């Protein structure tokens, strides 16, 4: 926040609406000491973070009072603002960033998606010791890449309490895409609770923040619309497995206020344009734990960059992204005002801002979509599709009625694919080539214990699924006809981005696992403390298969090297630093570690990372 307004009066009564909408003027309080505030002379866009540029940058981390909901809380901030200053750096520059810790506890800053020596990566206990209270750590590295990135604390839950900012690296050769306006749209969230307290509550009751759970009245409504048998069958497998079909997010608007550029929905962050201008929006998901579904009603979004790396432009209407991911989109607005609408995946709230020709105009804010139940596809992968008569499955014990029904509700967009996949599976057994990722599922020994509440035996490998809540929106009447939602299959790195076309020398398979009842998350059923590092050879091409054996989507972020996504046919597609893996999905990516050292690899849902879905990677 750069509008240093006086702190709002404390409301006498707690208002639910105020909580969800937030305070119009919510943010960092003006009572913050002046030395902590961002440089007032720095060029700032309306309502955005201050901008710092050059080769030498000073950042100060301190506690700062904030008020987003009517309650004053202490945030951890970088230079006193939320979001932290936007760093605008230049490709090829050797930068020196001095980070001073004025917190009573240790801190750190991680440069998300940046290739650098491991000692500069900013993960306490892996890359360095962390920054002790009162200490200044000097980060020095040369920028070997360009694009939209971000930076954040990698200590405790500090990222959730305000430590995140945009990091833009301008390409030496100039941007591929011309744009007259350039805005960072950083989406985050805020909770008035101590993050540790929220985590402890999840430990007692995993669905404590879920107020979209199946109820008796949902059941009676289903009985009246689809009949008793179908209504029972719809619930049968979920109940039998002790799984909740509305388990889309661990946190929700029950505790979160969703922010766009540090501004509450009521505050309405606004970006100004002149009609006819091309506007580049650099979307960054800097939340602790929220997936956002982003759209700008009335505007086509041309995605030109994903995770800082140029992609072949693709025109879409909506995209989903999780913590850690970034998308650059171009828009060409012609009306007076548009709403940038980012609803959270579990559909309990939204971040919202405006693109307008003047600060005083706005456009209607869409209603939240209804929360959709996870489908059998999300629980069982390809088992629910065409490949049913494969393998030794006992169809009698499978709940055919329930499945047919789930298909009826959510028509499949790729009905024919599963059959193909299972056939690949059969072929795979015969050949041992690494040209394609192996499709035979191999669960780890440690996936059969108390840490894993489900395993997927027939995962889906399709990349063209927008995910739960975004499927068939036009058919369901939730969007205009022809509404297109971005999927991983739409993303293709522009020529020249992917530079290593060697076949992988080795293939690793790891599974994403968890237990929602115990609230524990892990790789292969082993939380971080029980795990051993994944060892990779320096400069060797390697394939990593990630299979999601949970019902949640995990944005998997590998530090220090790219994650180059491929199809299940081994076709290299797009370079990412954070890959979202959907429930029951099996994806694979290739990487070539060019920098030795120890690196972190984790789910970027902060609570999942902290619960143990975290591995160390050694490159030597």
């Amino acid at each position, binding site marked *: 926040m750069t509008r240093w307004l006086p702190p709002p009066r404390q409301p006498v009564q707690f208002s639910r609406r105020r909580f969800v909408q937030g305070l119009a003027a919510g943010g960092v309080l003006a009572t913050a000491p002046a030395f902590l505030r961002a440089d007032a002379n720095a060029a700032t866009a309306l309502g955005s973070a201050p901008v710092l540029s050059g080769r030498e940058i000073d950042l100060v981390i301190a506690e700062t009072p904030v008020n987003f909901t009517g309650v004053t809380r202490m945030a951890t901030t970088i230079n006193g603002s939320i979001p932290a200053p936007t760093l605008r750096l230049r490709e090829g520059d050797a930068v020196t960033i001095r980070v001073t810790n004025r917190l009573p506890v240790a801190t750190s800053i991680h440069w998300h998606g940046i290739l650098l020596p491991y000692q500069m990566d900013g993960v306490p206990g892996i890359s360095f010791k962390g920054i002790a209270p009162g200490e200044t750590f000097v980060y020095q590295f040369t920028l070997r890449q360009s694009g939209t990135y971000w930076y954040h604390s990698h200590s405790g839950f500090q990222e959730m309490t305000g430590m995140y900012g945009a990091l833009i690296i301008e390409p030496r050769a100039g941007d591929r895409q011309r744009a007259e306006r350039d805005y960072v749209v950083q989406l985050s969230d805020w909770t008035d609770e101590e993050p540790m307290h929220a985590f402890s509550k999840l430990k007692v009751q995993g669905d404590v923040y879920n107020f979209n759970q199946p109820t008796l009245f949902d059941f009676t409504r289903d009985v009246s619309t689809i009949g008793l048998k179908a209504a029972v069958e719809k619930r049968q497998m979920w109940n039998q497995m002790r799984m909740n079909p509305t388990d889309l997010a661990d946190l929700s608007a029950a505790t979160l206020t969703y922010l766009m550029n540090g501004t509450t929905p009521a505050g309405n962050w606004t970006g100004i344009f002149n009609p006819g201008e091309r506007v580049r929006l650099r979307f960054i998901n800097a939340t602790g734990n929220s997936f956002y579904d982003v759209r700008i009603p009335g505007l086509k979004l041309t995605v030109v960059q994903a995770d800082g790396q140029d992609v072949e432009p693709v025109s879409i209407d909506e995209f989903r992204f999780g913590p850690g991911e970034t998308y650059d989109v171009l828009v060409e607005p012609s009306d007076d005002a548009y709403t940038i609408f980012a609803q959270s995946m579990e559909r309990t709230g939204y971040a919202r801002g405006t693109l307008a020709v003047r600060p005083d105009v706005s456009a209607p804010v869409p209603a939240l979509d209804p929360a959709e139940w996870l489908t059998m596809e999300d629980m069982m992968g390809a088992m629910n599709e065409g490949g049913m008569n494969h393998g030794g499955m006992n169809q009698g014990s499978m709940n055919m009625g329930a499945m047919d029904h789930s298909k009826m509700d959510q028509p499949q967009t790729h009905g024919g694919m599963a059959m193909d996949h299972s056939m690949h599976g059969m072929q795979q057994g015969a050949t041992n080539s690494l040209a394609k990722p192996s499709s035979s599922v191999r669960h780890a020994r440690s996936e059969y214990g108390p840490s894993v509440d489900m395993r997927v035996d027939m995962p889906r490998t399709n990349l063209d699924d927008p995910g739960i809540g975004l499927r068939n929106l036009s058919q369901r009447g939730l969007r205009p006809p022809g509404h297109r939602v971005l999927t991983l299959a739409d993303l293709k790195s522009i020529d020249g981005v992917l530079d290593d076309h060697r076949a992988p020398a080795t293939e690793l398979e790891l599974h994403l696992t968890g*237990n929602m009842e115990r609230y524990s998350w892990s790789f292969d059923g082993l939380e971080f403390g029980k795990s051993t590092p994944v060892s990779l050879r320096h400069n060797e091409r390697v394939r990593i298969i990630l299979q999601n054996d949970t019902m949640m989507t995990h944005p998997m972020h590998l530090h220090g090297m790219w994650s180059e996504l491929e199809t299940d046919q081994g076709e290299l597609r797009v370079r990412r630093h954070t890959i979202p893996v959907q429930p029951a999905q099996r994806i694979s990516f290739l990487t070539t570690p060019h920098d030795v050292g120890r690196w972190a690899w984790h789910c970027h849902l902060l609570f999942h990372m902290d619960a143990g879905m975290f591995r160390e990677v050694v490159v030597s």
Partner: protein
Amino acid sequence: MRRNAMKYLTTLVFAVGALQTNTVLAQMDHGDMQMQGGSAPADARDPNAYSDGYTLTEGPYAQPGPRQLKLMDEHIFWAVLGDRLEYQESSESTVYDLQGWYGTTYNRFVIKAEGDIADGSLEESSTDLLWGNALNPYFDTQLGVRIDQYDEGKDRQWLALGVQGLAPYWFELDVAAYVADGGRTAIKAEAEYELLLTQRLILQPRAELNLYGKDDPDNGLGSGLSDISLGLRLRYEITRQFAPYIGVEWAGAYGDTADYRREAGNKTSDTQFVAGLRFWF
């Protein structure tokens, strides 16, 4: 009578056994596929296969000294859950049923405390001090002691072995077997279900039964099935952690326990209204 007791015990052991089997069988067994539980096949992947022998503290580029990075999987948590803290109308007594735990995801120290307070004094109470250990994704085994205290009667100490967790179809189960000196044995089983009428209005059916291997005239407990109670509580979750409720509880005594009660001039079954508070923190 002894034979009768054995019959009850056997029945219950079978019931508990069946329940556990059901837990295993119900785990999405699709032919040769199993989505939950089970044991690892011989050719299961080695989760350390990619480590080249390195650990979090050993091998190239490891930070010197003891491991610094510890996440929540190595953190100690604790919680107190008050499932029932209620006033029972006809017996004019206050009943508490609390559980607390301290520990990690898979190993915790558990205290269960139940008791009746009437006329300002603790009429009877039962306290379990247990070591809980994860058995499978949804159940913990619990091993420890139970201390029963009676205002009028004889206090008892038991060794306790039980399982507690979430069964398929969302039934919360807590079943334990107890052994005390003099060859005393007992089994206690509790089951609860939560029916969400709305997101905050929740109906909770609850059943509890007690069996004893031996007559305990001092405490008015007979061998075999001693008592059953069935409750139905409707709570409103002002927050998930704070929910007042009203309900009805039916309790009945059987066999020798019923005889003891009749001899003492008490009713062998009773239905009463309850009002209370469910909370956790």
